[in-house]
């Protein structure tokens, strides 16, 4: 069988690799090249190459502000989402205690599992529009409408201090359902005997969670962390639709992807936007590499 290995593999790979090279690698290389020009997005690309875009980037306040916002999202989005999703998944699968040697979820967990997944079924644009109404700054907003008359309406997205947190809340709301399902699937593959044995030794639910569930789920959590981190680097759709003055007020919700979009389609500075894209590319790469390294704690294989 050995001699047929390579032609067989190559036969499978030719088409996907060709597509990948043209539409992904090619586009990346083009972005790197464009980031060295001052192309406006129209007409022929200037031939003069320089690092001006990167120098300007270094002095651009909005860039640092956007980067900071990306980092805030990068820290908070995975942590909060994973913690909430883990707790829910635990309650759905193990939280009900054990009966007849089988662990089960809290009462009605089958129903909740479906409900948790609902946000995932809504297009992000629709979620953004709906939450735009939820956070509306006057009494027509859902939250402000529920407050008693004596409390002055909160500005939410129009308040520099809270705007980014409002966006973060929506990101979390949308993501939790998916990770509950992912973690549930992971927990399903943890064998019942382990829980049983631990329960026999007198472990409480909290001990079960920290000593059994989390370690055995570690590799899944790691994947979740990387995916959520990547989502935090994006966040474009929500910011574009929900925020005041596209990334405002006054840049308070601006993120790198929003900046790239505005530079490309608003200000006709495709060269500059490409430089931002290059920065974003390296940031994402560094993040993924770091995450995999830092979390290199060998998962318990069963």
């Amino acid at each position: 069988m050995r001699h047929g290995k390579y032609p067989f593999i190559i036969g499978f790979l030719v088409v996907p690799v060709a597509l990948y090279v043209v539409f992904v690698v090619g586009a990346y290389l083009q972005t790197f090249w464009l980031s060295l020009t001052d192309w406006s997005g129209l007409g022929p690309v200037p031939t003069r190459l320089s690092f001006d875009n990167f120098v300007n980037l270094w002095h651009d306040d909005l860039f640092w502000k956007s980067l900071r916002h990306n980092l805030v999202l990068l820290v908070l989005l995975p942590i909060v989402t994973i913690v909430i999703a883990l707790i829910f998944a635990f309650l759905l699968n193990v939280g009900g205690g054990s009966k007849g040697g089988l662990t089960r979820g809290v009462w009605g967990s089958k129903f909740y599992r479906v409900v948790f997944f609902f946000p995932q079924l809504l297009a992000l644009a629709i979620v953004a529009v709906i939450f735009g109404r939820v956070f509306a700054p006057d009494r027509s907003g859902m939250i402000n409408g529920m407050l008693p008359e004596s409390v002055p309406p909160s500005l939410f997205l129009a308040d520099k201090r809270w705007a980014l947190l409002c966006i973060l809340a929506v990101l979390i709301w949308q993501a939790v359902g998916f990770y509950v399902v992912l973690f549930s699937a992971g927990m399903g593959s943890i064998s019942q005997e382990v829980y049983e044995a631990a329960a026999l030794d007198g472990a409480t639910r909290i001990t079960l969670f920290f000593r059994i569930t989390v370690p055995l789920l570690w590799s899944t959590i790691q994947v979740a962390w990387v995916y959520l981190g990547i989502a935090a680097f994006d966040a474009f759709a929500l910011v574009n639709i929900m925020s005041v003055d596209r990334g405002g007020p006054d840049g308070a919700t601006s993120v790198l992807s929003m900046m790239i979009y505005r530079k490309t389609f608003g200000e006709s500075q495709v060269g500059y936007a490409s430089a931002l894209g290059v920065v974003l590319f390296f940031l994402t790469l560094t993040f993924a590499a770091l995450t995999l390294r830092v979390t290199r704690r060998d998962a318990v294989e069963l």
Partner: protein
Amino acid sequence: MTDIFGTPSELDRRTLLRRAAAAGLLATPAVGMLSACVGGGSSDTQKQSTGTKSADNPLGIDPKAGTEIIIFNGGLGTKYATDVDTPLYNKKWPDSKITYSATEQISTVVQPRINAGNPPDMINNSGSNLMDMGAIVKAGQAQDLTDLFAAPSLDIPGKTVAETLVPGAVEQGTYNGKPYAVNYSYTVYGLWYNAKLFAKNNWTPPTTWADFTALCDKIKAAGVTPFGYAGANASYYMVRAIMTSAAKIGTEQVLKDIDNLKAGAWQTDAVKKAAEAWAQIGAKYTQKAFLGLRHTDVQLQQNQNKVAFYPCGSWLENEQAKDTPPGFEYAVTPIPSVTTSDQLPATAVNAAAGEIYFAAAKGKNPRGGMEYLRTMLSKEAAVGFTKLTKSLTVVAGSAEGLPLSPGLTSAAAMLKKAGKDAFVGYLFDSWYKKMDDESRAAVNELMYQGGTAQKFCDRMQAAADAVAKDSSITKFTRS
């Protein structure tokens, strides 16, 4: 077959994870894809159709060559093109086939075609997704329209096209001394209010700032928010109001200096005084929550008589036609004088041409595109446009004698009273998108976030200086 992938341990969980992460990476920066059409738009031009110039054919089009047009499908609709302009064009040139299409996303549809060297001949560059006209001109993609404006008008005998237009119309499509765009619709800006509500309460539109604030006090006492604009996406309406005040204090020269990036242009007394006066309105007579609202929300609140004055252009009435209740009648008044020593009278208004139409320089038939523009600038086409869209056009006097809606009647009357004091206003918003963006944020800070006039001027001056210093931005000048 299992050994195709080597031993199973080669693909352990860790490797799988790593690969999954690598695959996930690709989900993020679709940035590379944004520039998918790079490299096109080379400088050589394809073969273009031309004909012989004559008195009947002043632009020298090829009567048999087809012309492709693309229209922005927005607030003005597309009927004016399909039902008025195209039939009129074909009446004169029956053998020149018009290929028509419409889109709501101009830049996404047209920009790739420009870069591929295959643009439509006449393009309506408009809407929120419009292309940066300055960049198009710089890239040599817009046809020089000097011939068009010098050609005789289609149906106004004895006049060139330029002579049939309102003052400033050609100037607004001019980039560094040459005309490249036709700004077709004519918009008058001012403070819009409900004439019926005002009549009922005996409120008269103010002409001085003291009258304005006194009236605002009365309106506030009646439980109505005196003034408001939408900070979330329409703060540039407010930029225009402040700039109009600045021009009234110190003449239009103030705005010209700003457009020309003159040093210290934002720090002049006129700008500062205008910003101060408006900051006071922001602090006392509006609601901070409007910062988070969209233009549709605030306009609806005005229709419900919850907001008295709204700064806007004359498209407002048509835009709100669906939502305007029977007891509501739009009327408009000029922005009141700020000081008693204002150099322009209280009747002065900002009236500007808008809605860009241009002929592509590197299309198959740029001459045909220009001829289509000449057709649009005829009196017959202008009358049809005003009837269909309830908007005025730059063709002077073309709305006279037409039955107009109350709001447009009020706007036309305001324009007439202003006479020679109707001024074009500023152009930096279309020249320098960066300054436009900064002005939107700065005005929100001034009006809704407790900013000061000094801070507003400093911020805008810094933005203007940054643009002036940036060699990658094409500069424009006006006089």
